[in-house]
């Protein structure tokens, strides 16, 4: 592993103190971006690619909602519809939600927050973006060549034997992308262990970093198992291996176990980083030390570990053993506790604060509201008898959209607004940002709340046509989706506008705590800090502290 020695020269350091030299203007050629090993530039590469995938996945969502406007299948064929929801799921989960906060905000911020010059393995970081892109290309090719119709869950034997669509191409795409996720997680773990600045002890770390540490554990432990399962599907389709073929004695439930061993914890890959963002935003806009720091920190780790013990709650009706279901159910309730702890602590942080309502805070408060509903309905699904009724209905669809869209994307938006001045050095238009937060909040509820009702009524998910008494609720949902879509387009426009025309941001426009605000310029210089910072205080140390007894 030979490498050249990069050291900022004296002149570069002098430049950056007057804001002239930063990571953005350190080079303008395509090569300086595509072969960069700077974690901040790689974060920008991710930002662009996941935005593309987000709007691609969003397009599928719009088409799905339009089709469901009427009970009949009038916009598209059943086959096309099935491909739509499959591609929506695959694109949104593997190519948007899983990389979103970690690969963009985590990549950009973790070294800055812990006082490091870069992630531990900068070239592996770049490699993981390329792996992600190659995986994305395979998936995109599968879409172009006619799509895939297995559902994002790839249940066997439908996916391994019966489906006539491009399962192999997509499987290869997801397989490859998995390694990108693994490498990102691995990079974060090592960085957080080994690259902290002097004085940055574990219990001085920002909660954002704790959340990402927990996320990385899941990425490293969970992803390989789904990778193996998808590899077996590939072998079965290519060579007829027959491991999942019931005609040979294969057990279709084996795939479900392997799949959910990853895919349930994967939900926490999506939501934990969001929880990290919320902890940062709430403390900053309440100007207060977070309430119960160590409880929030350890609840992240608890969620990551317990998250691996509950996957069977996706299989309560699958023919899984009753006794195994009982164990999975009780463990599922255990995961509820650390999530509840977080929500209570965030709320308590506001108590006696000095709260202001800038856009990131609006998104964060929206997150708490939506995540609370999403989390509580998760309890419904962990409850054995109730789950039997609502499993595979729109109740489930509503629940996980409350977590993933209401939770993860709200948090992503909160974080994007919060750190936008740091990332780009520009301010976004505050009025528009608050407006879009409101639009998204309203649009979201209108889209997904009716789905709880239609789900309990019994409308199964993945239905192209449905009984007509469900129509009114579906129309409401589609109307909400339209508003939601507009809500996501507004930020796209004003963010793009602010890149050129937004007012210049100071190093710490929010008056926030943390190394990235206090010790780095906006945008940060190429090597983050002029000299390695030394940490002497705890996170969010706004003066003065009163110790309650």
């Amino acid at each position, binding site marked *: 592993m030979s490498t050249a020695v990069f050291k900022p020269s004296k002149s570069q350091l002098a430049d950056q103190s007057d804001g002239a030299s930063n990571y953005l203007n350190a080079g303008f050629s395509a090569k300086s971006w595509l072969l960069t090993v700077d974690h901040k530039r790689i974060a920008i590469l991710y930002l662009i690619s996941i935005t593309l995938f987000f709007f691609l996945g969003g397009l599928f969502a719009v088409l799905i909602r339009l089709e469901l406007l009427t009970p009949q299948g009038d916009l598209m064929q059943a086959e096309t519809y099935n491909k739509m929801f499959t591609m929506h799921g695959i694109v949104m989960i593997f190519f948007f939600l899983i990389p979103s906060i970690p690969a963009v905000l985590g990549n950009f911020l973790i070294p800055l927050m812990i006082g490091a010059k870069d992630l531990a393995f900068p070239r592996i970081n770049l490699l993981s973006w390329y792996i992600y892109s190659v995986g994305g290309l395979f998936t995109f090719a599968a879409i172009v060549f006619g799509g895939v119709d297995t559902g994002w869950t790839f249940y066997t034997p439908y996916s391994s034997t019966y489906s006539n669509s491009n399962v192999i191409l997509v499987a290869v795409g997801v397989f490859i992308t998995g390694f990108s996720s693994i490498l990102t997680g691995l990079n974060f773990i090592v960085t957080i262990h080994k690259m902290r600045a002097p004085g940055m002890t574990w219990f001085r770390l920002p909660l954002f970093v704790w959340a990402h540490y927990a996320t990385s554990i899941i990425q490293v432990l969970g992803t390989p198992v789904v990778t193996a399962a998808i590899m077996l599907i590939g072998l079965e389709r290519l060579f007829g291996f027959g491991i999942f073929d019931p005609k040979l004695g294969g057990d279709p439930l084996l795939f479900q176990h392997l799949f959910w061993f990853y895919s349930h914890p994967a939900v926490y890959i999506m939501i934990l980083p969001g929880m990290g963002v919320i902890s940062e935003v709430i403390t900053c806009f309440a100007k207060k030390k977070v309430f119960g720091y160590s409880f929030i920190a350890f609840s992240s780790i608890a969620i990551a570990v317990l998250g691996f013990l509950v*996957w069977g709650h996706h299989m309560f009706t699958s023919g899984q053993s009753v006794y195994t279901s009982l164990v999975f159910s009780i463990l599922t309730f255990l995961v509820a506790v650390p999530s509840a702890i977080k929500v209570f602590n965030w709320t308590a942080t506001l108590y006696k604060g000095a709260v202001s309502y800038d856009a990131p805070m609006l998104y964060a408060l929206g997150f708490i509201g939506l995540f609370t509903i999403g989390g509580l309905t998760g309890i419904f699904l962990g409850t054995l008898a109730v789950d039997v009724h609502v499993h595979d209905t729109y109740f489930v669809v509503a629940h996980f959209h409350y977590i993933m869209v209401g939770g993860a994307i709200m948090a992503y938006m909160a974080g994007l607004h919060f750190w936008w001045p740091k990332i780009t050095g520009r301010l976004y238009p505050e009025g528009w940002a608050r407006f879009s937060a409101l639009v998204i909040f309203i649009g979201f509820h209108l889209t997904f709340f009716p789905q709880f009702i239609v789900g309990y009524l019994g409308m199964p998910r993945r239905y192209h046509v449905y009984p007509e008494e469900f129509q009114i609720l579906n129309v409401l949902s589609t109307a909400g989706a339209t508003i939601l879509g507009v809500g996501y387009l507004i930020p796209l426009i004003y963010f793009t506008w602010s890149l050129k025309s937004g007012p210049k941001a100071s190093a710490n426009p929010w008056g926030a705590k943390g190394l990235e605000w206090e010790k780095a310029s906006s945008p940060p210089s190429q090597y983050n800090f002029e000299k390695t910072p030394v940490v002497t205080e705890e996170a969010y140390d706004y003066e003065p502290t009163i110790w309650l007894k």
Partner: protein
Amino acid sequence: MSQHIVPMRVYFVIFFSLLILTAVTVWVAFFDLGAVNDAVALGIATTKAMLVILYFMHVRYSSKLTWIFAATGFLFLIILLAFTLSDVLTRDWIPVSAGWGGGAQ
């Protein structure tokens, strides 16, 4: 952390232990001991793996952090195996025909 250099002798001792264990496990496989066979084969394999991890991979001389990392992978592997197996083994405890008129129990 400067590197800990292990005397070469240790490596040879481990190498010969591994070879002997391999011979033993093959030898035992030809006796019919029922379920004991499986236990012995897996026990020997685990022992061999431990020797490789502790000595060849230097975990014995490494920081506590490395110990934790080395253990974590296997711990979660056990979780995966245990839960999956628990499903397969207890699936038929309530037979399909439970409670049928004249049905099986």
